[in-house]
């Protein structure tokens, strides 16, 4: 069976690694249909798993923005069936580390000095890798610092990396090219911002100060040092804390889990409604947990600014009662670009109830006022819904992208937040303390 569907080698050799996977995925579909013709119905799960594995294998060899895009897709589980997203979720940032001489060079062009001249001590090797750079440990005047150094030429490669993702994303998302462009331009914009360390520094300082001034309980940030930062270097305090996995391994009490979960929720609530800009990368590596129930937040590389009009119709939709008011609901669905002018009556008939179901489910924490994220049944429902959406032929055959491009990162942020809270099994108050347009700072 296998040989029959093996990949034509000439093609593979000519193609880049990425194209290779495209071929492989095609092969997996073939395999799937072959199996189906023999066994009648085989679960699509096997197919998804095969595809996800091949895509993941390729992506794990890619660095930088292609990997980021993959990770992003893995966060937005609405977009991907479960097997894909599970594989993608495994993707770790694994760019080859910058050599020490290059770090020295980067320092020399920023400060005219080697890192060992700028700091009292500076680790020869990176202590942590990131998709577009790495973190070194340093000390200055007895203070322990984290110094992030960016890989050269990253900004230039963002666009070309995204072009590489395109054939896959198109296949997986099954939307028209023009709709795809709309989403990709949003992704490209965020990724380019992420390579801008000056901007990241500015936003880190701005958001952390605003949150501290607000006095959200139990939250801490590193202090940032603009004088020790540059275009490709950011220096901040080294902050202590455990990653989520380590933290959970210490068996924190329910009380502590709730407290830390509440802090996390309030942090996002404040950013969304007051600052109208959010830390849009809620992946576990960006949070540090402590046993006293406090939460450290690092990495403001990916921040989504929420435009006023989008804010307005997005949160109006997530208000209790809206889904029971057909007229208002349809109006808000149109504003949110779930349905468009171009849709036929049949399409409207198909999608309006579908989106009602999606918003009804995904918005549950908003509508409830209090929510137990430890409740697995909620997440099972989400999986089942996305799986059934994926398997719905009519939905799949509709090649219109639905949802505003701004929702891409906002949904990702909320879903990432849900997942973190789920892992924490936190039971928290989810009604907003800050919602309301008049409260914007």
């Amino acid at each position, binding site marked *: 069976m296998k040989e029959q569907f093996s990949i034509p080698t000439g093609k593979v050799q000519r193609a*880049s690694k990425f194209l290779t996977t495209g071929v492989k995925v095609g092969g997996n579909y073939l395999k799937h249909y072959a199996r189906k013709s023999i066994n009648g119905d085989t679960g699509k799960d096997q197919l998804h798993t095969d595809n996800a594995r091949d895509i993941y294998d390729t992506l794990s060899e890619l660095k930088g923005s292609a990997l980021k895009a993959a990770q992003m897709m893995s966060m937005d589980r609405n977009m991907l069936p479960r097997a894909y997203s599970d594989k993608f979720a495994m993707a770790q940032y694994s760019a*080859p580390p910058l050599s020490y001489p290059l770090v020295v*060079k980067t320092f020399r062009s920023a400060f005219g000095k080697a890192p060992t001249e700028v700091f009292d001590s500076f680790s020869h090797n990176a202590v942590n890798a990131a998709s577009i750079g790495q973190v070194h440990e340093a000390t200055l005047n007895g203070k322990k610092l984290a110094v992030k150094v960016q890989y050269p030429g990253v900004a230039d490669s963002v666009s*070309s990396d995204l072009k590489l993702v395109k054939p896959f994303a198109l296949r997986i998302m099954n939307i028209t090219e023009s709709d795809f462009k709309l989403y990709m331009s949003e992704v490209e914009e965020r990724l380019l911002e992420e390579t801008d360390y000056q901007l990241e520094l500015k936003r880190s300082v701005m958001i952390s100060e605003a949150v501290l001034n607000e006095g959200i309980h139990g939250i801490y940030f590193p202090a940032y040092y603009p004088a020790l930062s540059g275009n490709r270097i950011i220096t901040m305090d080294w902050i202590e804390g455990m990653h989520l996995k380590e933290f959970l391994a210490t068996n924190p009490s329910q009380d502590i889990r709730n407290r830390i979960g509440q802090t996390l929720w309030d942090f996002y609530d404040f950013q969304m409604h007051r600052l109208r800009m959010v830390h849009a990368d809620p992946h576990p590596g960006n949070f540090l947990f402590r046993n006293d129930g406090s939460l450290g937040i690092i990495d403001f590389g990916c921040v989504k600014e929420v435009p006023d009009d989008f804010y307005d119709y997005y949160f109006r939709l997530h208000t209790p009662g809206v889904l029971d008011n057909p007229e208002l609901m349809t109006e808000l669905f149109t504003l949110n670009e779930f349905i468009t002018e171009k849709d036929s009556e049949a399409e409207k008939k198909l999608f309006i109830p579908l989106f009602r179901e999606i918003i009804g489910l995904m918005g549950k924490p908003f509508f409830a006022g209090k929510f137990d994220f430890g409740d697995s049944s909620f997440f099972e429902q989400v999986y089942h819904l996305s799986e059934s959406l994926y398997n719905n032929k009519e939905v799949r055959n509709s090649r219109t992208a639905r949802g505003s491009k701004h929702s891409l990162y906002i949904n990702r942020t909320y879903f990432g937040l849900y997942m973190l809270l789920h892992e924490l099994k936190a039971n928290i108050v989810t009604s907003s303390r800050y919602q309301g347009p008049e409260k914007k700072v």
Partner: protein
Amino acid sequence: MVAKTKKNKPENPEKDLQATITDAYIDFYLNKGKKPASVYEFTSRLKIEEKDFYQFFGSFEGLEKSLWSGFLNTTLETLSASGEYESYPVKEKLLSFYYTLAEVLKSKRSFILLSTEKEAELLKNHTLSKAREVFQAYVSGLMEEGMESGEIVKRPYITERYPELLWLQLLFVLRFWIKDESAGFEKTDAAIEKAVKVSFDLMGPGAVDSLIDMAKFLYHNR
């Protein structure tokens, strides 16, 4: 870099004159867009005697040859003057070499671009022959050090070819740098990282991953 230190040391007038002649040659080349017609024309402009020129160089080609080997010597001097360099593993020594060389070349970039444009073959032909000797002597030392430290695996027949292969790598970096249009020549930095990683992965154990990484990088950028 060379010129500065030499101007500060007038006790070596011969070296000083050599540098003056070299600088004047580059200056002429850049301003006129071509070599001087003859050594005679060049030296009379400079108001020195023709024989003073031959004291250092046999011809303009000879001058360019020692200019290039001078770039490498300056690089090596800069490296040994930095305290940290000696403590680096061999791979990082070679990386530092390239980064320092790129800095040295930067100050003469216009000349290098112009002369390589005029003579597309420059990077291949004998203009670099002296530089090549300097480089190969340097990397031969590195290779021995690497084999002692275990960074480089001793392979019969192949190991002796390493200095030559690394020379090809230097030419690759040089060509990449000449064509590099990125701000601060960041792409060259990335090219150096990747090229050196590949060569050390090939010379050490475990190669394939890095080769793919570099191929992909070139696919993106060229």
